[in-house]
C-alpha cells in the first residue's frame, strides 16, 4: 500500500462507477507500480467496498446515513480531517468531482490539477500532465508542483480501466470519523430527467445537429436530411439550451448515452461532454467548417464544409438514389 495515494470512489445503485478502475490506471501512470488506497462514502456501502477491494491497498469505508446522498459540502470537511498531509487524491472529472475538488484542494492547501487526460510522469515533485483547451482544439502540457500534495481530477474515459485483482484489499471501517458532519448546503431531492417523445438511446442511425447550424430557421435542413435517410434526430447541448429541440434529444454526459451504428455530427465541435455520450464505436461522420475541430480526432470520416451548402445537396442526392 502507498500511504499517500488515494482514489475517491463514486458509486451508483450499490455498484462502483466505471471511473474507479480508470483512476487506478491514472494513479499508476503517475506513481509507477503504486497500489493506491480507496475512499468510499455512503450509506450501506459494504458491498461497494468489497467489490473494489482487490484493486487497492486499503479501502476506507465511511458508512453513515447522513452520507446516503453524495453531498460535496459534507464530504469536503471529512476528507480534510482524514487525509494525511501530503496526500494525492484522484477523482473523476464529473459533476461530483468538480463540485468537490477545487474547494478541497484549497482546504487541504494542495495543488489542484483539473481534467487530466494524460500523464507524462513525475520528475521530483513536478507532475507532468496533459490537458485540453478550447473545446479540445489544442492540448497543453502542464507542470504542477505537487510537493505539498494534490487533488487531481481525471477525465472519464481518458485512461483504460485497470485489471481488477492484484492487491490485498483490506477494508478499514472509518465510519466513526464521519459522525457529526454538518454543511451549509443540504440535499433535498433528486429529480430524474424527463422522458421525452423519442428515445434516441434505441436508434441505430442518428443525425446530430450542433451550434454550427447557426439558426433555428436552419433546423428544417437537418430534419429533411433525417427524413431522407430514415434516421432519428439528436443534438448537442447548445441546441437544447436555445430551446430549438427537446432535452430528450441531447447526446452527452448531461444528456443521453447513445449506441448507434451510424452517427452524423453536423456542426458539432466535439467537446468531451458531447463525445462522452457516444458509445459502441459507431461509424462517425463529421461535417464541420473548422478543420481544427476536435470532432475530427474521433470521427471515422470528416468533411470540412459549410452545412448550409452541403446539407441540401446531400439530402437531394439521397432522395434521388432511392
Amino acid at each position: 500500500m502507498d500511504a499517500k495515494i488515494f482514489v475517491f470512489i463514486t458509486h451508483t445503485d450499490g455498484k462502483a462507477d466505471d471511473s474507479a478502475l480508470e483512476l487506478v490506471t491514472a494513479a499508476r501512470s503517475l506513481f509507477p507500480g503504486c497500489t493506491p488506497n480507496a475512499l468510499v462514502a455512503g450509506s450501506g456501502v459494504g458491498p461497494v467496498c468489497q467489490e473494489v477491494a482487490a484493486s487497492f491497498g486499503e479501502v476506507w469505508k465511511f458508512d453513515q446515513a447522513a452520507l446516503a446522498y453524495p453531498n460535496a459540502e459534507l464530504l469536503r470537511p471529512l476528507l480534510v480531517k482524514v487525509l494525511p498531509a501530503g496526500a494525492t487524491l484522484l477523482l473523476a472529472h464529473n459533476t461530483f468531482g468538480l463540485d468537490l475538488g477545487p474547494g478541497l484542494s484549497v482546504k487541504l492547501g494542495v495543488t489542484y490539477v483539473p481534467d487530466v487526460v494524460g500523464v507524462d510522469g513525475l520528475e521530483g515533485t513536478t507532475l507532468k500532465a496533459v490537458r485540453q483547451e478550447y473545446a479540445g482544439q489544442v492540448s497543453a502540457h502542464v507542470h504542477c508542483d505537487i510537493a505539498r500534495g494534490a487533488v487531481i481530477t481525471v477525465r472519464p474515459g481518458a485512461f483504460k480501466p485497470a485489471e481488477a485483482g492484484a492487491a490485498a484489499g483490506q477494508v478499514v471501517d472509518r465510519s466513526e470519523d464521519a459522525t457529526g458532519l454538518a454543511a451549509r448546503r443540504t440535499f433535498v431531492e433528486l429529480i430524474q430527467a424527463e422522458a421525452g417523445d423519442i428515445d434516441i438511446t434505441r436508434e441505430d442511425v442518428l443525425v446530430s445537429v450542433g451550434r454550427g447550424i447557426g439558426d433555428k430557421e436552419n433546423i428544417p435542413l437537418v430534419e429533411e436530411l433525417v427524413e431522407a435517410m430514415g434516421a432519428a434526430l439528436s443534438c448537442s447541448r447548445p441546441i437544447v439550451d436555445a430551446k430549438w429541440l427537446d432535452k430528450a434529444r441531447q447526446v452527452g454526459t448531461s444528456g443521453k448515452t447513445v449506441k448507434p451504428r451510424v452517427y452524423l455530427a453536423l456542426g458539432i465541435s466535439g467537446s468531451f461532454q458531447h463525445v462522452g455520450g457516444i458509445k459502441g464505436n459507431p461509424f462517425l461522420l463529421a461535417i464541420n467548417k473548422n478543420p481544427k475541430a476536435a470532432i475530427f480526432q474521433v470521427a471515422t470520416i470528416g468533411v470540412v464544409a459549410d452545412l448550409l451548402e452541403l446539407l441540401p445537396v446531400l439530402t437531394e442526392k439521397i432522395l434521388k438514389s432511392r
Partner: protein
Amino acid sequence: MEILVCVKRVPDSAENEISVGPGGADIRREDLVYSVNEWDNYAVEEAIQIVERVGGNVTVVSVGDTEAEEIVRREMAMGANQGLLATDAAFTGSDGLGIATILEAVARKTKYDLILTGAQADDGAAQVGGMLGALLDWPYASLVNLIKVEGDKALRIGREIEGGSQEISDIELPCVLSIQTGINEPRYVGIRGIRKVASVEIPVLDGGALGLPPETVGAAGARVRRVDYFVPQTGAGAEMLTGSTEEVAGKLVDLLKAKGGIK
C-alpha cells in the same frame, strides 16, 4: 441582494480556428474573435433576473488585461449595475488558484450576498468558483441550473448532474454558485445598449488596491504552469473527404449506403 458575477474574456472556440503558435508557447492570437465566456453570460443574466425579482445590485468583475474592459461593459449593457476590472502586470500567468485569490480580494472589499461564476471557461478547468468559495469559506455549489430566493438567508437551488437529472438543495447565504448553461435565456444586447454604457467609468483595481502581495499571484505564485501547446495525435484521425460539394455529397451517399446509414 448584492450579487457579484465573475466574467472572463475568452477567444470564442465556436467562432475561431485555434492553432498553435511558434514553438508552442501560445496559441495564435492574431485574428481571434473574443467574447465573454459562454457560461458567464448565463450567470450575469441570472443575477439580473434575481435582482429584478428581489431588488439589489449586480456587479460584474473580470481579471484580465485592459482589453477585458470591453466584456465588462457588454455585461453592463445587459443590465449589470456596476463593473470592475482587476488588472496588474503581476497577475499575468496566474493559475486557477491565483485568479480565485484575486477574486477573493475583490469580494472582500464589499459585502456581497451571492457570487456567481460560470461553470467553466475556455480551458474547461471548472475550478475558479469552487476555489473562491473555499477561500471565502462560503458554501458552494457547481453546475447550478435553478435558483429560487427563499427569504434573505438561503436559496433553493438545482444542480444539473449526469444524464440531465437535477439535484435540489438548500444553501445558506452568502454562497458561491457556478452556473450551467440553459438556466435561462440570456437577453440580447443591442448596439443601443452598448452605447448607453459607453462612457460609464469602470474602476480598475490593481494588486496594491486589493492588498495582494505580488508573490501570491501571477506566475510567481502559480503551482500549475502551462509549458506549451500542441496538437494531439489521436489514432489515425478521420479520413477527410475532399472535392466539390457535389462530389463530397456523392461520396457521402455511397458511404452511408455501405454502412446502413440510409434505411
